[in-house]
């Protein structure tokens, strides 16, 4: 029994994470984007871009859309049904999120999966990837918080006069959905291209829908040349980070075992420097982390990095695992040549 248990752990630690993640993402993508066709309904508080505009196929709905919709009510409405429904929705979002933490981004998010597919396409074509410069990285990181504040504030300002300012037009009721590339890209996977439009009915609609189209163009090219291009700006990532501390899935680091070799940093799609540099913190789920676990797979030290679910190690770095994966990569390269 003990031997079997040990073998299972060894098999998990030695697994080909890239392949596992690739198939996991395909299954998650199919359920989120096409699940509605088989009657799947995971509710409307999902902490991932299960696009509400994919009306037929979606297997659940993104909470950001629901959040903007809930905030559009007059403030006095929040003492009634709308207020309680808002709290229940926020609570359910947190519960869903706590299960996988940022793993929603790395393993489930259909927009993240699309970006990974675009990265794979680039690698096939052998086009060089790009990186954000260190000088701009801090500014880029703050964009997601600005977007989060705007998506929370603008819907409130439609039904209420905030700080004595005039009420905003109804065209801003779902400001992030207007500009989110998921609105165009996710329904497109079900053959619905109707979300590609510019609305000329008001100035607000012209601006918002045009920004949406620009974002889609930037998303397609940006994700092709930069790994997880959009995740740096994603307000869902910012919202998730607020709830991240009590989540069940964590990325732990034992700083005493770290040699600062930098393999984890080089493997990271989000270029998170702390993963290699920080040897004092235990929990290394940062605001940009997508919990893709590439860093764990790339680490050559026994037990230095681990994915931990409710106190139990589910995947950890080992020397053996590192060598097995190195051999896999070598084989792949040999086959390619």
């Amino acid at each position, binding site marked *: 029994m003990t031997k079997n248990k040990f073998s299972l752990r060894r098999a998990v630690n030695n697994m080909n994470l890239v392949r596992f993640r690739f198939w996991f993402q395909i299954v998650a993508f199919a359920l989120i984007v096409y699940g*509605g066709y088989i*009657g799947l*309904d995971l*509710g*409307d*508080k999902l902490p991932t871009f299960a696009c509400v*505009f994919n*009306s037929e196929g*979606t297997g*659940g*709905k993104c909470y950001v859309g*629901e959040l903007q919709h809930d905030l559009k*009510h*007059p403030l006095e*409405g929040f*003492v*009634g*049904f*709308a207020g*309680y*429904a808002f709290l*229940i*929705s926020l*609570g*359910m979002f947190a519960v869903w999120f706590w299960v996988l933490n940022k793993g929603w981004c790395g393993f489930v998010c259909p927009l993240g999966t699309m970006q990974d597919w675009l990265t794979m396409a680039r690698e096939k074509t052998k086009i*060089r990837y*790009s990186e954000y410069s260190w000088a701009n990285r801090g500014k880029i990181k703050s964009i997601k918080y600005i977007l989060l504040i705007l998506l929370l504030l603008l819907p409130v300002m439609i039904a209420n006069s905030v700080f004595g300012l005039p009420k905003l037009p109804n065209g801003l009721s779902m400001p992030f959905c207007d500009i989110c590339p998921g609105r*165009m890209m996710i329904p497109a996977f079900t053959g619905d*291209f*109707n*979300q*590609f*439009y*510019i*609305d*000329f*009915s008001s100035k607000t609609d012209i601006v918002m*829908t*045009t920004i949406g*189209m*620009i974002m*889609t*163009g*930037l998303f*397609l*090219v*940006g994700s092709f*040349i930069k790994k997880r291009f959009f995740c740096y700006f994603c307000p869902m990532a910012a919202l998730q980070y607020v709830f991240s501390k009590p989540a069940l899935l964590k990325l732990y680091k034992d700083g005493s075992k770290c040699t600062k070799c930098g393999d984890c940093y080089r493997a990271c799609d989000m270029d998170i420097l702390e993963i290699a540099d920080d040897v004092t913190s235990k929990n290394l789920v940062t605001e940009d982390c997508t919990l893709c676990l590439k860093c764990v797979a790339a680490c050559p030290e026994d037990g230095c990095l681990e994915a931990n679910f409710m106190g139990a190690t589910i995947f950890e770095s080992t020397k053996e695992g590192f060598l097995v994966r190195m051999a896999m990569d070598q084989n792949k390269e040999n086959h390619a040549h």
Partner: protein
Amino acid sequence: MKKIVLVLVTLLVSLWADTLWLDETKKKKCCEAKLGVLPLKELSVKSGTLQENEKLKDLNGSVLYIRDMDGKIEEHNLSGSKITVTPQYKGNYHLFLKHQEVVDGVLNVQLSTYRFYNKEGNLSCSWTKEVRGKTSDSRYLSEPLPQLPFQLMMEKTIHNHHVNCCLYVGDIIPLKVYYKGELLKDVSVDVELESGWKNIIKSNNEGMMMVEIPKSTYEQEKGDKKRSEKLLVSATYDVNESGVYDGKSYTSAHYVMSIPLSFGDTPLEYESKTLAFATVIGVMLVFSLGLYYNRRRKRKTPKEIYFDEE
């Protein structure tokens, strides 16, 4: 030929004259309901056409079936002149009105259905549903209501714009007619608009009737995002069947069922898809070229330094 036309016209006029339909009296704004107060919907029953109609003042003898999003059906015997519904949950509700009487040995069965989306529920009994966040309950019924012998059913509309929630000009409404659970294949529906336009749509070989909401030719109605107009579709069916209802015997039955709908002007009047695709492609081209030239510039810089040093 003349006789057939005359019979058809007479039949048409008589059918429109006895069509009943449900009408929401006052649409409440979202979030008006306070805690502890049940959301309330008030409806009235109208008889006639959309242009010329009268409100029924006595609904005695009529039955209302309320179907919630879980398929649970409640039956209510109506009285008075208005219908009051207190939906408990947030979601789609389908109402079915049945009014029948025997006149001159003919059983007249007048039916109407109406769907509304309840935005607020009773929190004490709906909080579990709020937690669940049920999203897949449909605006369209998948099967006929067993309580209705005759039913006109609307299926998912076909459209080529981006809005999925409502009906718009140009949308195609597929309709089917069922009699005692069986699909009728040789039938037609009468379509009528508030502005006066009327048409008869016949079924295809599979019993499907496709009603395309006509475009308004009135210049002042074009491109108005907030314009809303009513549409009434109704189907009739005569069958030889005998029986006794309310102590009166009948030898034939005449069924008529209506669905009142509302629609707006098509979003395609004020949106452009071509420009949207052009914008996406344009951004992709500009961004790609920018990257390409930026990379070329960066790659050349060290070479120039190298040659300078030599």
